[in-house]
């Protein structure tokens, strides 16, 4: 890479995104949804950061705000050292080309009046990557092939596709510009395991060949382990644990991370899968609990958890966790 690797290609600094809330009578109440509530992260060139976490904990909102598709309430995002919030117009568009998003909701994110040819090819033409219609058609067809679709899909409209086919159009569109940074928001959720494997292999290749950096949002813990260098676990707007992928799976420290790993359904009908379900109330991002925000569901909750908010501390080299159970940095953890 030409640029210095420090402080990373993407750097998120103390980011907050709060949404105003409607009351029953359509007036705005003073309550807000604390979708992202103080997140800092860095992603190096060629690094994939896996982001897992509770449904509704703010992953999509975080991804969108990194790409400047949602305006943060506070904090900033640097791309290649540039604060994107300061940019508008053409300079912003120049950056945009290098940052792409695979949307979680393919249904809502594909223009229903455009054919696949235009959905996938338009940006290439706008950015002058292809010079002729013929070149565009060839490039679109080859992109479709890499996501496992026949080239005759070029002439289809989004409503003429199955859920998983739409999802793959979203992937092809995001890859068309060979971005330097990709936010992939649940890119595999509508695909069968074989096509998942195919797409994940493709992403791995791109990672290695083009040194793409990626924020990979998923509920699939196997895929996140396979594809990520580092994994961050999010809960109620915050990062509660972050570690290198293998380390996280070997030594999960946060009780929420452990619960996640236990709840993965086992693909074997003879092995009894009985996750001890997390009891207790699922907290709301509108009125988060005092102290530790996981305490309402935590099996190990004790008196301190209600009083004090655990900070994200380095439990051991490279392994951060926010939990009162985890001892001071130097002491060995059990």
């Amino acid at each position, binding site marked *: 890479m030409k640029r210095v690797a420090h402080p990373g290609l993407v750097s998120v600094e103390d980011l907050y995104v709060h949404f105003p809330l409607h009351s029953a009578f359509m007036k705005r109440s003073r309550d807000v949804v604390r979708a992202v509530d103080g997140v800092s992260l860095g992603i190096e060139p060629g690094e994939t950061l896996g982001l897992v976490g509770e*449904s509704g904990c703010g992953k999509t909102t975080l991804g969108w705000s990194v790409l400047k598709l949602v305006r943060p309430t506070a904090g900033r995002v640097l791309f290649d050292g540039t604060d994107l919030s300061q940019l508008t117009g053409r300079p912003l568009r120049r950056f945009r080309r290098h940052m792409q998003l695979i949307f979680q909701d*393919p249904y809502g994110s594909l223009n229903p009046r455009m054919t696949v040819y235009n959905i996938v090819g338009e940006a290439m033409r706008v950015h002058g990557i292809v010079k002729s219609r013929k070149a565009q058609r060839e490039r679109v067809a080859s992109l479709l092939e890499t996501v496992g679709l026949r080239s005759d899909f070029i002439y289809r409209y989004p409503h003429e596709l*199955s859920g998983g086919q739409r999802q793959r159009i979203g992937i092809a569109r995001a890859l068309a510009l060979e971005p330097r940074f990709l936010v992939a928001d649940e890119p595999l959720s509508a695909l069968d395991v074989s096509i998942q494997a195919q797409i994940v*292999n493709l992403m791995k290749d791109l990672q290695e060949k083009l040194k793409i950096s990626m924020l990979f949002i998923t509920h699939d813990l196997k895929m996140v*382990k*396979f594809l990520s260098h580092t994994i961050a676990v999010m809960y109620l707007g915050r990062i509660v644990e972050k570690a290198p992928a293998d380390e996280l799976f070997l030594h999960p420290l946060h009780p929420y991370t452990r619960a996640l790993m236990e709840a993965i359904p086992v693909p*074997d009908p003879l092995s009894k899968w009985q996750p001890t*379900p997390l009891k207790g109330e699922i907290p709301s*991002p509108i009125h988060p609990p005092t102290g530790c925000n996981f305490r309402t569901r935590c099996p190990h909750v004790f008196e301190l958890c209600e009083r004090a908010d655990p900070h994200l501390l380095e439990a051991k080299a490279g392994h951060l966790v926010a939990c009162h159970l985890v001892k001071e940095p130097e002491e060995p953890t059990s």
Partner: protein
Amino acid sequence: MTQEASESVLRIEGLRVVIKRGRRKNAVVDGVDLSIGRGEVLGLVGESGCGKTMTALSILRLVPDPPMEISSGRILFGGRDLLKLSASGIRKVRGREISMIFQEPMSALNPVHTCGRQVMEVFQVHKGLSRHHARTRTIELFEMVGIPAASTRINAYPHELSGGMLQRVMVAMAIVCRPPLIIADEPTTALDVTIQAQVLELLVKLRSDFGTSLLFITHDLGIVAQLANRISIMYAGQIVEEGPVTEIFSTPVHPYTLGLLDSVPRLDEIAEGQSRLRAIGGVAPEPGALTTGCRFADRCEFVFERCRSEVPELFTYGEGRRTRCFLVDEAATMRISQEAP
């Protein structure tokens, strides 16, 4: 848990759904037979684009027409053929006797109404509840499916909820009337595994409390293994294999099933630096493509001459197993019948 055919709640026979293009009609669902017993969970899995959603939509007669059309078959439910009901007849079945959790919640929810209002409406229309009661019940349901701050969130519009919350709204809507059959098309893809476990538990409870049957479409073989009694595997518009879940996982026969099970990564096998996951090579043929033989032949590692010249039937053998593959016809039938007690 194999069910007697007489007990079945739903029976689909010879279902064919075609896309009309000019004078050509290409089948996206091509002769599908399925049956679901009372209190049974049937897992329907298969390649993306193989026709699972269209099969499910056919049951409620919701396939997009045009360009699609149910060209033949019967769908027997509660002593009637759903395909023969009048428009108002099938409307009464929807939601009340059979409900559906749609694959893409945004396609099923109205963006200009709050989620709460849309669930309340089901209570008001189908259950005749007053506005006030409907509201209370909706909040209860939202809590049951794990939507936090339910009493506030019923005022949220679809775009204000996360993907997983919308899925839970869909689940809530589907269980309002406690219908005897729920069709769930990928209902938990946007849920983290802890909430997923909670939603699955809720569905299992409906089954044990009310004998609810479930047609569960999913790509997650872990869920199928844990939840389903039987599995049907679809490929290019047809059922290619079916049987009790334990048997399909222990002795899969159809090469597509083998490839699919082989593609499931196991958490403990994913090691640092591993660079590839296994996948089935090639792509499925286009619906309606002229094939003289087996539709999987081009991708099959066991292909032999007969597969290219003759179309395999769905062979039935053992206890409720069906496979569309000549391997069964030739050798496996003998082996399996010898092994069977």
